[in-house]
């Protein structure tokens, strides 16, 4: 029996050291941090023995929902892992956190696609070999199979798409007709003053308004085009009742009819309300205007961190997250429901679940939408947003 650095310690401590994964590979900074976090967890929370004895500790930065025990527990059990979560509340914030050093502790990230793609040039994400994911992609809708250009950086795949949906007006069909929202014109109609809600979620309300102004925000913009964006935002603020950062406020307003429509959100906002039986709340996509598609398809994706000390397990977890079983759970969470990229899940959905997800409408929405990706001038547009908001007060 070989002697190692902890052989002289009592048996109890030796077991803990093994459980924390500090036994063989030595004590690098990453292991030290994870070990400390694990030890602190055990000491402070009195975690049960099974968790403390998991062979591998992993950290998963994700939106709420990806951490659902029904998704994660089977993986932990099958792989003898203990996954801790770093829940993000907005994608830029998560990206900023990774850049600030969290990339050293995080193994896997599930976030909005543009921010996953940005992880490529930022040197944060591990480039994936699509051939390693053939079995995963076999179940995918064709639209998200490789080469899926929005998730690529210089020809390399950065992540795998997981959930998706569409951005368009969210309306209550009891107080307005979906046909009225074939354009974004009602947003600017003086008759709707103080009846429009805008989701204050970074670029989400800006991009549809740019499209309405005839500007494609996913292409490089010149000063004149940016000024058009400025004007359309200025006009939008005139009719806006509230900018909300919280889904429930918008959902409540739509349900009680105090809000006619909500801009900058979409199926992400409506699906959870529909799950509760309010089928009168729906997300629609305006029709193309002068050849420019007015809707936006958002996609969430998952990537493995370059600095992960468990690259194989992380890729295994990634495959697990997009698997049929996990994707079915991910599609119908309590907080939000969304369609997933895994086509095989369709067979599991009941007609009611399909109705909740507006699956009869999803390809219409897809066909009338831009694929959300990195908007080259987004920082200028966000600055314009701040300026116009300050001017509006």
């Amino acid at each position, binding site marked *: 029996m070989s002697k190692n650095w902890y052989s002289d310690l009592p048996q109890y401590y030796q077991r803990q050291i093994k459980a924390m994964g500090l036994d063989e590979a030595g004590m690098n900074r990453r292991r030290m941090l994870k070990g400390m976090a694990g030890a602190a967890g055990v000491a402070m929370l009195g975690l049960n023995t099974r968790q403390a004895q998991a062979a591998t500790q992993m950290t998963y930065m994700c939106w709420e929902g990806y951490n659902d025990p029904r998704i994660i527990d089977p993986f932990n059990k099958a792989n003898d892992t203990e996954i801790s979560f770093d829940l993000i509340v*907005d994608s830029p914030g998560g990206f900023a956190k990774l850049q600030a050093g969290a990339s050293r502790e995080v193994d896997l990230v599930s976030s909005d696609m543009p921010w996953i793609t940005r992880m490529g040039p930022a040197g944060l994400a591990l480039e994936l070999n699509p051939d390693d994911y053939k079995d995963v992609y076999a179940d995918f809708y064709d639209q998200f199979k490789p080469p899926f250009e929005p998730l690529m950086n210089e020809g390399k795949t950065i992540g795998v798409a997981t959930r998706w949906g569409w951005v368009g007006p969210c309306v209550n069909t009891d107080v307005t007709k979906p046909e009225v929202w074939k354009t974004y014109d009602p947003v600017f109609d003086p008759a709707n003053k103080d009846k429009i809600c805008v989701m204050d979620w970074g*670029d989400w309300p800006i991009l549809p308004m740019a499209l309405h102004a005839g500007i494609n925000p996913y292409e490089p913009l010149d000063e004149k085009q940016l000024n058009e964006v400025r004007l359309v935002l200025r006009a939008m603020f005139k009719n806006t009742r509230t900018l*909300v*950062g919280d889904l429930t406020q918008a959902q409540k307003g739509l349900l009680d009819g105090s809000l006619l429509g909500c801009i900058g959100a979409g199926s992400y906002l409506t699906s959870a309300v529909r799950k509760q039986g309010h089928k009168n709340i729906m997300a629609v996509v305006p029709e193309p205007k002068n050849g420019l598609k007015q809707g936006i398809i958002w996609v969430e994706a998952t990537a493995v961190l370059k600095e992960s000390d468990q690259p194989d397990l992380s890729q295994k977890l990634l495959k697990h997250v997009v698997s049929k079983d996990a994707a079915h759970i991910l599609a119908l969470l309590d907080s939000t429901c969304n369609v997933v990229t895994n086509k095989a899940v369709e067979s599991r959905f009941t007609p009611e679940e399909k109705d909740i997800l507006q699956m009869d409408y999803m390809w219409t929405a897809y066909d009338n939408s831009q694929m959300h990706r990195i908007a080259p001038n987004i920082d200028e547009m966000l*600055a314009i947003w701040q300026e116009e908001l300050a*001017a509006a007060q």
Partner: protein
Amino acid sequence: MDMEVSRSWRDPELWVKALPSVVLQTTCFLAPLVMTFILTFQKTQNFQLNWTWSLATWTDVFTKPHYWTILGHTLFMAVACVVVCIIIAFPIAYGLATRFKRLDNEIKVLITFAFITDATLKTFGWVLFLDKKGAANYLLAHLGFPAETVAFLFTDWATLLGMVYNLLPFAIFTIYLSIDNIDRSLILAAYDAGASKFRAFWEVTLPLSRPGIWAGSVLIFLLGVGVFLEPKVLGGGKSPMSAELIRQTFETRVNWPLGAALTLVLMVVAIFVVLLFSRVAGMRRAGA
């Protein structure tokens, strides 16, 4: 004979005693502040910090008027909150310290409960109350008032209401402590000298409770310039205040140098306002 204590910087004992505090202040306050200041001279590129020295951020801050519009609005709201809080808190604190002595423990417990209840919960509670279809309008409609009588949700008034509601206990407690510490014999002496109740209050109670008013004002002002929940939830986000601007800049724009610069500007301006107010109040006291 009084022993004069020598306090010279050459005194090693003084250094030893001051060392923990100096280390704490340096590591937890000064060092982050210096790092924040250094950060303002860097640039971002493609949402990443680019360690290149530049004055671009400060040029941006001093040339874009909207930052100052939002800062001005923030200061105005914070000052308004201070004024309203003091006006409301003083009679409550005075009553607690003088008229309701018998019940002051129960009342303090109630105020403390309001104090420790989560601000998010309370703020969203106001939304449910003030909404077009909320409890206030429902009750008023049943009393015969026109529909949607209460219609100030998502305005600055609603923001102010939320700020006052959440920050009021700070003023109540600081003023209460101040009034409670007033020597009652001074007030009785004023009565003996022929002062009316109002004159005794004006000449004795109010001046002696000034430290509490001042402490409460500073506390509320500094907390007021940092609020982001109330303007976002009750104000409808249409009149953003500096904290929200800074959050947006750090998180949504991932522009850390600009966020750091706006943070420093807010800090400096807030401290300047407090010092200015302090000086004016000091001059008035000296002149009185």
